[in-house]
């Protein structure tokens, strides 16, 4: 019986398995998790002929350096990522959105993401990992998911199974667009903030703080003044909610967020902009633009059609 596996030579900063995530668990305190940038997760899988929902390796900033052993397999990387593939007698500079065939002894060295946060490595097969609540997504906070809920570590071996027999090489010309404004829908506590505070929220620039992770994105900038109460009775949260605690600095809930929170909600990021929001690295400037519910729904429909188009062309 052949065996196929990856050895982690260098794990990278925050490298985890992610898939579509897990649902129907907010009421017990477990968030969705799953790939932060959903579109890039899907494209990575399509490039290696996987089911679109399959698990990929997600990395942030610096990625992993891995060595592959086993039969020939395809791999692809999506995002805006600098990486190389080392074969027996040559090392090639990798290109995102192209699949490569790797064989026994080859190495993939993911050096860094470029002016973005998350990148995805898909391999044509399945990771032999544990599933919890139908997902192997790692939530390092609650230690839920595969790998005992911990990020990948140096020296680890990851087994692969069901290697895809379809080894067609694929390619697409996708470019990750950056946007100037993040569109938001008014939050349920919008009226807790002063007129000046509301104006600041929509007109001023905020900077993404270093203290951002899969749970949340913290912003720095002009303070948003609250004139009603800096606490509310704790209630449910969803990803994209922008809470403003007493210090006046907004925090945006991301995929591993706490399920309940007690800070007023000034806005919620429109679903159409979520994939691009999570790719904004610390130091990036962010501006919010208000849209209404019906525009948000239409824009998401268009975004989803665009995603489906992209996938169908691969």
């Amino acid at each position: 019986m052949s065996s196929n596996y990856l050895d982690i030579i260098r794990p990278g900063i925050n490298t985890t398995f992610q898939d579509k995530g897990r649902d129907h668990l907010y009421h017990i305190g477990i968030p969705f998790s799953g790939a932060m940038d959903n579109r890039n997760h899907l494209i990575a899988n399509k490039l290696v002929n996987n089911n679109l929902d399959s698990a990929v390796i997600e990395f942030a900033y610096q990625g992993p350096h891995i060595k592959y052993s086993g039969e020939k397999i395809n791999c692809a990387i999506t995002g805006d990522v600098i990486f190389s593939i080392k074969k027996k007698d040559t090392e090639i500079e990798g290109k995102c959105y192209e699949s490569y065939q790797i064989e026994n002894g080859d190495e993939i060295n993911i050096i860094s993401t470029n002016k973005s946060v998350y990148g995805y490595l898909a391999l044509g097969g399945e990771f032999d990992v544990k599933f919890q609540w139908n997902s192997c997504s790692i939530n390092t906070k609650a230690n839920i998911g595969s790998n005992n809920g911990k990020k990948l570590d140096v020296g680890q071996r990851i087994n692969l199974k069901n290697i895809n027999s379809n080894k067609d090489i694929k390619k697409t010309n996708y470019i990750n667009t950056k946007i100037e404004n993040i569109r938001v829908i008014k939050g349920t506590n919008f009226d807790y903030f002063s007129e000046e505070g509301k104006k600041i929220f929509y007109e001023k620039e905020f900077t993404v703080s270093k203290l951002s992770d899969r749970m949340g994105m913290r912003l720095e900038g002009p303070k948003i003044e609250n004139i009603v109460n800096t606490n509310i009775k704790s209630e449910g949260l969803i990803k994209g909610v922008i809470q403003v605690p007493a210090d006046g600095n907004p925090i945006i809930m991301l995929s591993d967020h706490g399920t309940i929170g007690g800070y007023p909600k000034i806005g919620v990021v429109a679903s159409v902009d979520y994939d691009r929001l999570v790719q904004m690295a610390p130091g990036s400037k962010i501006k919010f633009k208000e849209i209404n519910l019906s525009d948000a729904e239409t824009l998401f429909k268009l975004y989803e059609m665009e995603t489906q188009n992209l996938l169908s062309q691969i």
Partner: protein
Amino acid sequence: MIKNISNLGDAALYCDFGNEVNKSINSQVIKYFKTIKEKKFEGINNLTPSYNKLIISYDLKKTNFKEVKSFVENINVEDSIDINSKKLEIPVCCHENFSMDIKRLEEILKLSREKILENFLNKEYFCYMTGFIAGMPFLGDLDENMRAQRLETPRVKVPKGSVALTEQFANIYTFESPGGWNILGNTPLDVFDSSKEDKPNLINPGDTVVFKEITLDQYKNYNE
């Protein structure tokens, strides 16, 4: 009853049951939660009941605000639904190794340690909701003279098992986490166990919890 339904972003419904926090409003929230959960409406992917709100999240690829709102407005929630009513005893050790904020509580509440424990232990608390971190129960109501604000600067790490107080509520940190509640003791019980996929939470909304004091020796030997 739901007083108002609005949208929370473009992928969730915000059902408002009122502003007060009490058992009767919370029981309504739980009844709606249970009814909607059983109906398995296509596209709804999460429900978050809290003291007096219910947030219904949905997949915008499958449904939208208008459809989910009309579904919620037209469901019939039987008043006779049985909300959970398990009664649980939770052992808690309030030895100084664990009760990190006892001095602070003594000062704020102007009560002695003995009096604080007497007020807290052996009383029935209702579980309003679980969450923030996996399995964390929000229990109430504490006596009027036991209500303290959260710490001005939250701790970066609150130990697993910590039993803590804020305002009219007590909670249990199901694993190590940041947190700003006043820590009174620690329980050796696993309140959240992710290996039990069908029932990871020991305490669920609607349950009743009584804290029973154990000694440090009993604590140390608890899991043996």
